[in-house]
Every structure is written in C-alpha cells, then in structure tokens.
C-alpha cells in the first residue's frame, strides 16, 4: 500500500542504569522477510526483541509496526504482533485448547472467530490431536509449539520469536524451521538465535549484535558474494590501488598490516594472476585463502575486528 515497511525501528537504545543493553539499533522489515538476530549470549538480543514487542520502553528511538507507533498507540500496534519469548508464556494447569482460547480472546478475537483461529494455529504447529493435553505434562518440543501457536493465533503480520529452537531435538528443529519458512509467505518474522546454521537455512537477512551494538546487518544474498573473496597477506604489501589493477580483482579492502580482502570476478584464474603479480613485484605473498564466508566466520570476524578496535582505542 504505502512505502512504509511493516516494522520500522529507528535508533533504538535501552540502558540499565549505565549499562548499555542495546544501542543504535535500526531496522526496516517487510512482509515476506525473515530476519535472523544473531549474537553471543548477553549481546542484547532479548532486550532488542522486548523493545520491538513493547515489553520494554526504549531509552531512545522509536518503533513503528504497520505505521503505528508502538509507544503512542501500543494497543493497536500490539494487535499486529505475535511474540514468543525465550520461555514460552504458558500456564501449566490449562489444557492446550483452554490456553489457546484465552490467548485468542486476549488478542481481541471475537468469540465466534475463536474456534476457527484455534484450528488454524493448531494445524500449523501440528498440535491438532493434542488439544486436550495439559500443558504441564508436555515435552519441551510441544511446549515450544504451543508457544508458537500462541504467537500465530491472531494472524499478526509481524511475528517475533526469541530463540525458537533452543533445547529441541534435531527433528523438532527441522519442523520448526519448516514452519518458519512457511510463515514467510504471509508474515514478517524476526527470530533470535545463537545457532548460525539456523540463520543460514531460514533467514533472508541477518543482523549481528555484539555487546549491545549492531555490528553487521545485511541480506544473506549479499553474503553469497563473500564466497568470491580472497583473503591475502603480504610481507611487503603494495598499496590498495595497485592491487586493484591486478587482473580479475574487482574490489580491494585493506585490513592493515599487509592484509587485504580481495573481491574476485571469477575465482578460477584470478589467483594465478594475483600470485603472478605478487611474485613479479616482490610483495612476498604469505597467505592466500578463499574466504568461504559462512555466517560463523563473519560472526567471528566481526566480533574479532570489534574487539581489536576497542583494544586500540
């Protein structure tokens, strides 16, 4: 309809006293996108999701869901939001059906709409046959699914899942991932995790947090380009400009101390040309490797680079 994204976060920050939980977090997200929020424990993932879901008020910045300001009109904004916290918010003494009915009513569904919504949510999370089971007796995987069903029941455009696959067995993880891929068709999904493979399988975009700051934010498609990146080290480095003119190199990024990241046009041949140039010009090539950037590497590199920055600062 309008150009406004479904979720807009601008410059969000939250402090606990002087401790920085998250700072300068900005995000635009549209329906059909799945964003992975990645970071080590304590990086501020949960705080960020809490800010986006209205559980915490930000120290600064703003959040809009579907063009509605979360702070000024929280009720309308939350109507468009499904949230699964780290621990699914369940009542052990209710049955799945009773619980989902309550959730549906809490989200403003009318009595007549409830059975339909419950059926749909249970179907999606494969809980169809378990409706009468007591939540307190469920296994971890089932509890997680009930938690997800709760986030889906009012069909919100935006779904936020905090570590949805933690503590599940591989089969259950696979199911949940399949579910998330399915959700992408009609919803925007944000999920936090510290499992890198998860982001690679289900997400289109990734945002990496470290110690309360977003340190990397890009699409996964863009990451694929990294696969054609060489990482080289010279003892006697040329300047970046010279390096850029070597055949087959389309981009150069200097990392300092003779280390470079080279963007290659084609990965065959380009190394030859590079090695040749290095030999002829006496750059003393010490290291040459194909940067097959999995998220893991980006993750470590980003964290590492950040650590160094702070050490030198």
């Amino acid at each position, binding site marked *: 309809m309008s150009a406004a994204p479904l979720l807009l976060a601008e410059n969000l920050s939250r402090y606990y006293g002087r401790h920085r939980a998250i700072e300068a977090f900005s995000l635009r997200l549209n329906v059909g996108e799945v964003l992975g929020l990645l970071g080590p424990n304590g990086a501020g993932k949960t705080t960020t999701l809490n800010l986006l879901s209205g559980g*915490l008020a930000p120290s600064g910045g703003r959040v809009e869901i579907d063009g509605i300001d979360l702070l000024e009109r929280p*009720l309308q904004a939350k109507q468009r939001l499904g949230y699964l916290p780290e621990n699914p918010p369940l009542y052990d003494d209710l049955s799945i059906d009773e619980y989902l009915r309550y959730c549906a009513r809490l989200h*403003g569904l009318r009595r007549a709409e409830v059975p339909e919504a419950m059926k749909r949510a249970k179907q999606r999370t494969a809980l169809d046959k378990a409706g009468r089971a007591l939540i307190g007796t469920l296994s971890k995987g089932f509890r997680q699914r009930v938690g997800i069903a709760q986030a889906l029941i009012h069909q919100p455009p935006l779904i936020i899942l905090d570590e949805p696959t933690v503590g599940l067995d591989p089969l259950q993880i696979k199911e949940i991932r399949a579910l998330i891929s399915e959700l992408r068709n009609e919803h925007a999904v944000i999920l936090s995790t510290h499992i890198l493979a998860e982001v690679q399988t289900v997400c289109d975009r990734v945002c990496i947090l470290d110690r309360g700051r977003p340190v990397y934010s890009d699409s996964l498609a863009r990451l694929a380009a990294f696969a054609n990146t060489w990482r080289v080290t010279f003892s006697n480095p040329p300047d970046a400009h010279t390096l850029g003119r070597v055949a087959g190199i389309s981009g150069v990024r200097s990392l300092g101390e003779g280390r470079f990241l080279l963007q290659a046009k084609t990965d065959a041949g380009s190394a030859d040309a590079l090695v040749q140039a290095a030999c002829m010009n006496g750059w003393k090539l010490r290291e040459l490797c194909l940067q097959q950037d999995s998220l893991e590497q980006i993750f470590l590199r980003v964290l590492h680079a950040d650590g160094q920055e702070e050490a030198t600062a």
Partner: protein
Amino acid sequence: MILVIARHELRRLFYSPLAWSILALVQLILAFLFLTAVQNYIDNVMPKLAGMANAPGVVSLVLTPFFLWAGVIMLGITPILTMRGFSEEYQTGSMALLIAAPLSVSEIVLGKYFGLVAFLSVMIAMITLMPLSLSLGTSLDWGHLQAQILGLFLLTASFAAAGLYISSLTRQPALAAVGGFGFLLLLFVFYVAGTAQGTQSQLFVYISHFSHYLPFLRGEFSTRALAYYLLFALTFLGLTIRQLDNQRLPR
C-alpha cells in the same frame, strides 16, 4: 478484556488444589466457631435473656463475633490467594503473554483483581450459608446480616487489593504471601495499639481497616467506612498499575 482476564484468573484458581483446600479449611474452622457460638447461645445466653424486654437478638450475639472471626481469618488467607497474582506470572514468564497482548496495564490489573474478588465472593457466599441456616429455627434481623456480609466483602476486597500490589513487587510467591500477611497484620496491630489504654491514637484507629469493619458488624451501613475501603482498594490498584508500568521504563 477485563472480563476475559478475570474469568481466566477465576478458572485457574479453581484448577489449583490450593484454592480448594483454602475453601475447605476456612469452612471447617468457621463451622466449628459457629457451632460453639450457637451452642453457647442456646445453653447459657438464651435462658438469661428469657423474659427480658428488648433483648439483643441472635444476630448481635452469635453472628457479630462470627463475622469478626471471619474477618480475622480472611486476613490470614487472602495473601495466600493473592500471592500468585503477579509473582507467579513473573516467575514462570507467563507475564510476557499479557504484556505482548494488546492490553493496557489497567486492564491487566483490574482483570486480575476482579478474578480474585469473584473467588473471594464465592468464599463469602459459602461462609454466609451458616448464618442463613439459623433462619430455619429463628427469625433473623436481615438488615443487620446484610450489613455484616457487605462489611466482610469490603474488608476482604481491600485485603485483596493490598495483596495484589505486594505480589507485583516480587518474583517470589512465598515472599508475596509473607509480605502481604505482614502488611495486613500491621494494620490490625495499629487498631490494637490505637485502642489500647496507654497508646490511644485516633490516627492509628482510622488507618486500620478493622476499625471500619466494626460499624458493619454492629449493623450500620457506614458510608464513611465504605469510602475508606474504596479508597484503600483504589490506592493499591493504582500503585500496582504504577509498578507494572515502571517495569517497562528505563531506569
């Protein structure tokens, strides 16, 4: 929305063995007290009153102490019912459901409060069955009895508001129960201290919720006391809303 939460709270109370045991226990204790009072009335009091003009009725002589006891027992058990209010939700993480849902904080607090009050009303209704049983054998002063029931209801409802506030302060239900009980007991002690010979204090008597319960026990419908209980409940509900709001804000 408030009703949805209230109904949910009430239902969950009845799912827990705790609420059932409390209902049973209160009924047992009060039944015993009731029986003793009635027996005492029949054996000792009635013969003395025979032939006296304008003798005090059975409501004053049997039911006034009975309702006083009921009030004291409520002081002990309301905190146990309110302790789950918010503490348990914090602890299990289910509070997140309410917070992420499109609800205002006032709706959450009022919903919980009305759920509790509904449960307490059930309890009071069950307690009231005992005095009603007297109507089989004698004629009761209905106005007096109504005032006593209303008084007990207001007293208990004010306990519930205070207990709910205290449970919004802590993640530990046990601490909420102890805190709530301590607070209510303190107000009771204010009354004891305020009326004692050496330490008389009108202020203490006024602050204490028990001093406002007495007019109802005497069969008066006191608007002053009514206003006190309403203010008391509103104050603590307001504080609870504030407390929940504050948890979201940055410090």
